[in-house]
């Protein structure tokens, strides 16, 4: 069973098109959305929640078509964190607790205040006096406190320091210890995604460049740093993209197609993303 199923999703804006995107996130797994600004990550997230209308395609969330009437019920089981969208600034966390108690059927007050404690968030302070990071942590606390089965997280670690980011990743990791629970998460910080994701999807200019198991991806590709002459033995079809300097060549290659004599390093998601991005940019020219 899929937590999220997206098929041939299209959304047009002036100057932007989310173009025929398809992917699925099986229940119990974490999918990371990677992409530069304007790649369509937030648009995809919004389309998953049907907060914007799709032009065509199919989106099913927790088995329910998200344009159907019953999707409101399904939202009970979805925790969402949005970049920079929250309650009015004059409210405080205690009030949010009261509001959410009357919003979600399964609101867990103790858990919510537990997270408030864990994140050392002051419950009486109005949000005007919260930092960006604190707002993010509050938002995450809310998302985790109503027995969610799915978390939809748009840039949840932006604006947070590394230690808090790591703590949040730990919490997300714990969340999926239950195989009913799934997460779709987008981030600029690809290192964060690399730590917790089972699947990685690359978006670029509204197109899904690839969507693959993270470890397969990391094994499929490799990074080669070599001199020009050393690089000569790498066949053309093994090269995804390369960067030439006066001293040599750095390249992203397919591991399987590269001769064993060439030293291949394990790439990071960021390496793959940056090199692929460059490759696509070149193709567009």
């Amino acid at each position: 069973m899929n937590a999220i199923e997206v098929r041939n999703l299209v959304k047009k804006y002036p100057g932007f098109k989310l173009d025929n995107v398809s992917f699925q996130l099986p229940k119990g797994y974490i999918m990371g959305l990677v992409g530069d600004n304007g790649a369509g990550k937030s648009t995809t997230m919004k389309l998953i929640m049907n907060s914007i209308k799709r032009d065509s395609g199919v989106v099913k969330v927790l088995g329910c078509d998200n344009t159907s009437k019953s999707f409101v019920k399904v939202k009970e089981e979805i925790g969402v964190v949005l970049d920079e969208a929250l309650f009015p600034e004059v409210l405080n966390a205690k009030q949010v607790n009261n509001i959410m108690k009357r919003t979600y059927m399964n609101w867990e007050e103790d858990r919510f205040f537990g997270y408030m404690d864990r994140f050392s968030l002051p419950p009486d302070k109005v949000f005007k006096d919260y930092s960006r990071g604190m707002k993010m942590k509050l938002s995450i606390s809310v998302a985790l406190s109503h027995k969610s089965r799915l978390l939809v997280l748009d840039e949840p670690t932006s604006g947070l320091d590394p230690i808090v980011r790591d703590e949040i990743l730990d919490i997300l990791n714990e969340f999926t210890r239950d195989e009913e629970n799934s997460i779709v998460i987008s981030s600029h910080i690809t290192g964060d995604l690399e730590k917790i994701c089972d699947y990685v999807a690359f978006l670029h200019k509204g197109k899904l460049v690839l969507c693959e198991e993270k470890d397969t991806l990391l094994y499929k590709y490799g990074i080669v740093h070599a001199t020009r002459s050393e690089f000569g033995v790498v066949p053309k079809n093994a090269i995804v993209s390369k960067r030439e300097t006066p001293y040599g060549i750095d390249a992203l290659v397919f591991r399987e197609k590269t001769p064993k004599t060439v030293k291949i390093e394990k790439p990071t998601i960021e390496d793959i993303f940056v090199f692929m991005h460059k490759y696509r940019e070149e193709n567009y020219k």
Partner: protein
Amino acid sequence: MKGLLLKDFYTLIKQVRFFLLVLLFMALLPGTSMAPFVILYAVMLPVSILGYDERAKWDRYAAMLPYTKKSIVLSKYIMGYAGLILASLLTVTAHVVYANIKGSVPELGYFYEIGVLVCIALFYLAVHLPFMYKFGVEKGRLVFLALTAVVVFGLMYLSDKISKGLMLDPYDLLAYIIPVAITANLVSILVSIRIYEKKEF
């Protein structure tokens, strides 16, 4: 829906507290009729909440919660109505209390006046909110003001003819404008929901 109303209530509470003080002060001043002020203020409340919402991008967040767009819109109207009921009760009470202190009987005409004011306020709400939803708070306010200006000038131009043609006492007037106010609100709610459902955040 309860959660939405509670959120709106929390958003307003500080502002309203200050307003209640002003009100009390005005009520204590003899001879001032605070009714139009109070009632118009009350009807502005939903717009003021919308301002806070907009700044916090609340609508984007609300779209993620288990609420229909219908109930999100409806809650703003309900806040407006609740404010109106509260404000008119307040002014009526103040009037009665004041009359008692003076030892006179509360005038029936005053209640009609309040009735007419509430209807005007309702009408105002009905026209105002769809503009807010369509254009956002800043632009919506401008569009609304422009429209008001046109209507006011139009009325001024026509007022001579109207006042000659229709010599109505407040009671008759009420009989006309209550249905108008109610219809206007029903239409307004439908229009607002329609606008809000089409809107993307």
